[in-house]
């Protein structure tokens, strides 16, 4: 019995190639969509109870200025006159002079409320996520300052560079519908 002929002409070759490329494209598209769908279910976030303020959030993020910023829960804050997250350990004066401020980038705004209470707000554009203020607040205060991944900046990388470098395994995936891990009842993302 004679073998069937396996030769194909140019038209068939082109047709088959086009078909194969089309299928490959459709498959790739489906794969991309599938991957995107899975990733969009969750976001990266920092568990503030595990964070040790090592400073890597400021240096490891793929963004030029980290997506991690200090966050302030006003319901936890004591509105202290001498805030250890705001002032150097031995400030010259308890005022807003740059020499008295702990933050190297001046990213905390101190506002007088009523004697002896002051409100502290984070200036997100200046905060680099180093966690220096968080350390001061945690060590001596109520822990109302803590680091969070700001979702408006985060690229939600598949493999977060900070998460890899985090020595405390404080980076976790959280549901997209609840993308912050805030402290206290009055937790506020500002």
């Amino acid at each position, binding site marked *: 019995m004679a073998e069937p002929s396996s030769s194909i002409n140019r038209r068939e070759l082109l047709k088959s190639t086009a078909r194969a490329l089309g*299928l490959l494209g459709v498959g790739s598209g489906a794969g*991309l969509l599938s*991957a995107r769908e899975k990733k969009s279910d969750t976001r990266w976030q920092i568990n503030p109870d595990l964070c040790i303020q090592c400073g890597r959030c400021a240096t490891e993020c793929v963004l030029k200025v980290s997506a991690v910023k200090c966050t302030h829960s006003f319901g936890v804050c004591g509105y202290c006159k001498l805030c250890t997250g705001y002032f150097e350990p*031995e400030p010259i004066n308890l005022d807003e002079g740059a020499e008295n401020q702990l933050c*190297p980038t001046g990213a905390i705004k101190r506002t007088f409320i009523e004697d*002896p209470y002051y409100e502290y707000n984070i200036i997100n554009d200046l905060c680099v996520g180093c966690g220096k203020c968080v350390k001061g607040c945690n*060590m001596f205060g109520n822990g109302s300052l803590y680091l969070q991944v700001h979702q408006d900046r985060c690229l939600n990388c598949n493999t977060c560079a900070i998460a890899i470098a985090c020595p405390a395994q404080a980076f976790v995936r959280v549901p997209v519908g609840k993308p912050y891990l805030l402290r206290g009842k009055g937790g506020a993302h500002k």
Partner: protein
Amino acid sequence: MSEKNSDNNTPATLDSPPVPGRRTFLRAAAWGGGILGLGGLAGYAAKRFSGGQPARTATPPLGDEFTYDVSRFQKSDPALIRYEEVTRFPCGLERGRNITASADGSIWVAGTGGIRKLSNEGKLLLTIEIDEPVYSVVIRKTGEILAGMAGKISVLDGSGNETAIWSDYPDNFLPTSISLVGDRIFVADAGNRVVLKLDASGNKTGIIGERDLARNIAGFMVPSPYFCVRMAPDGLLRVTNPGEHRIEAYTFEGDLEAGWGKSSFAVEGFCGCCNPVSFDIFPDGSFVTCEKGLPRVKLYDPEGNFTGLVAGPDAFPEYLKAANAGTPHSLGSGIYAAIDPTGRVLVLDAVGGTVRIMKPKD
């Protein structure tokens, strides 16, 4: 012109496109499926493992200006240490929040888990299990126990059975310290930042420390649940104003008479948001104070002049380790002191979970 289809010998003509045979169709379908699958895998892998991951550029480490460093304050001058440790033992609680000594010399600690009565050697004499945190404990001359909890004071007999609950107090009532003066009871209410004056049955008879600028009283600043009241031998109450780093003297009628204390990380001052967290008063009117953040137990004369250390920060290595690690934060990490009938200082370290008995150096 006609020709045979190679698969099934069905005739094929130039007028109509050749009909593929079943074998050809299956082979083509398998190829198509394979290619589609490969494409899908490639797309998935591209997105999951590399897609959306911008290239990293090396970032230099942070400079020293980004480091919070208080290590220079965590060492103490040995020449300032006036006490030595006699013994130490576990406090028997998940998280200690208060310590006191009864007239018979027994040690009472309160906190998360209830109340424990301990001997001077650390032997457990009595366990009182309480489901909610106990913030303060004091023993009456009758042997009754007053236990301060959020919203109430529980009255217990000497065996730990509850005999009464006092709860007719303002919202947010948080009794972090109780002091007995004869039949009167003074309670530091951290939730409302005032000292409540109670009669022997727990009825409120007055308030001390409410903001009243006409009486030159600015009010207490209590950022966290550390607020302490004690009776001094000069007949005046002493109350911490932790946000202001002061200890203030009040009459029973609520007049502010005096105060002392200064803000400083240096050993003679108080630092952080809320220090001192607790204190007690010797029979001669001098003070022993406790601080969190920088765990220090210090001595002051009756006028508030620093005279030495009972224990410096380096005596609390577990505490410093936790503090330097940045977690847990300082809520629930107090240091508490009480003076026992023999003049020794009992120190409760909430982070280390221990009671230390300290006596003056010879």
